[in-house]
């Protein structure tokens, strides 16, 4: 599992960081993204749907949002 700290970044920066991380990974690998901008709760899943990746889990703890995604095969 790759860990991505996107705390304090405002959208769309968490999405950009996620994208740049995912681009370096192989299908099936997972990324755990921690962020604080609630916009990411919409944007990261939307970005995943568009680009063929899977959201495994999202959870909110106090002011932190944790999103786990799995890299798709690019289709």
């Amino acid at each position, binding site marked *: 599992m790759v860990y991505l700290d996107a705390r304090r970044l405002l959208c769309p920066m968490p999405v950009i960081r996620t994208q740049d991380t995912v681009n370096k990974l192989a299908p099936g690998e997972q990324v755990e993204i921690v962020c604080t901008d*609630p916009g990411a709760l919409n*944007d990261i899943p939307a970005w995943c749907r568009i680009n063929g990746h899977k959201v495994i889990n999202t959870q909110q703890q106090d002011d932190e949002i944790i999103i786990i995604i799995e890299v798709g095969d690019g289709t």
Partner: protein
Amino acid sequence: MSQQRKAVALISGGLDSLLAARAIMEQGVHVEGLNFFTGFCVEGHTHAIRKKDKQKPKRNNALWVAEQLGIKLHIIDVIEPYKDVLLNPKHGYGANLNPCLDCKCFMVGKALQWMREHDFDFIITGEVVGQRPKSQRKETMPIVQEESGAGDLLVRPLCAKKLPPTLPEREGWIDREKLFEFSGRSRKPQFALAEEYGFKDYATPAGGCCFLTDENYSRKLADMWQARSDRDYELDDIMLLKVGRHIRPRPHFKLIVGREEGENKFLEGYRKRFVHLRSVSHTGPLVLIDGKATEDDLNLAAQITARFGHGKNAEQVEIEANYMDGSSRLLQVKPLSADEMQTEWYI
């Protein structure tokens, strides 16, 4: 069967780029979207910061557009290279600090680079002739083609018939007859086309795609440049201009005053980088000091901080000043009265 052509579409999140991409997809072309993040984009930020907006669903319009179209979207961070566009625009600024024409040349140039790296065939934008008084005129259309280097690989589907045929049209990759001849400032043809394609709920931001078209924002940016005698900036600088009240009581420092809980929280993230003040005897905002404040200045800053808290009518308010090294001290001040707050201090 002929080869399927591939086009890269500039997606701002607005209606025009949505329609332009769709018009080309209708012709069987494979389209993917590019969205550039300059740091000044309106998307999301302030909504995320301000508590009162938190109930509203937040969405990134560029992602939403891509999802409507069923295409991939690549969001590119251009914060660094964009500085040169903003600081040295060859064609100058629009009504505010928006360097639209240079910005378009830059973005199409970046799209061209992406197109080549990814083996795509041409570029699409949602530009319409005559839609913007400065940047989208008949005369500026060839400037974007030339200065971006895209030449006739740049297709503007919404006004293609008003312009000379591009390579994809001449080569028959796309049918010119199925493109459009929109022009001018009226948005009616776009609304009608959106209806025809079945798009609802699309974004029609009044101020365009970025903060640089906003008068208040541009004023704060110009003020920051002037006060620092240097126009370079970091992402944090331009983010902070979107948040809070900005008050400059002296030329060498300004205060950033949180307007509500969400903003105070956001400003808290900057505590280690700024001397900051907060009322301890009454509830009140978090206030950052940007610049170099002397002891006298600190007193004035504390009085202003007290002015924006619940103790504004009290005889005395206790303010805690926190320094960047982690130390702090307490100040007893009388809040400034409404009359003492000079209107020209507000940026």
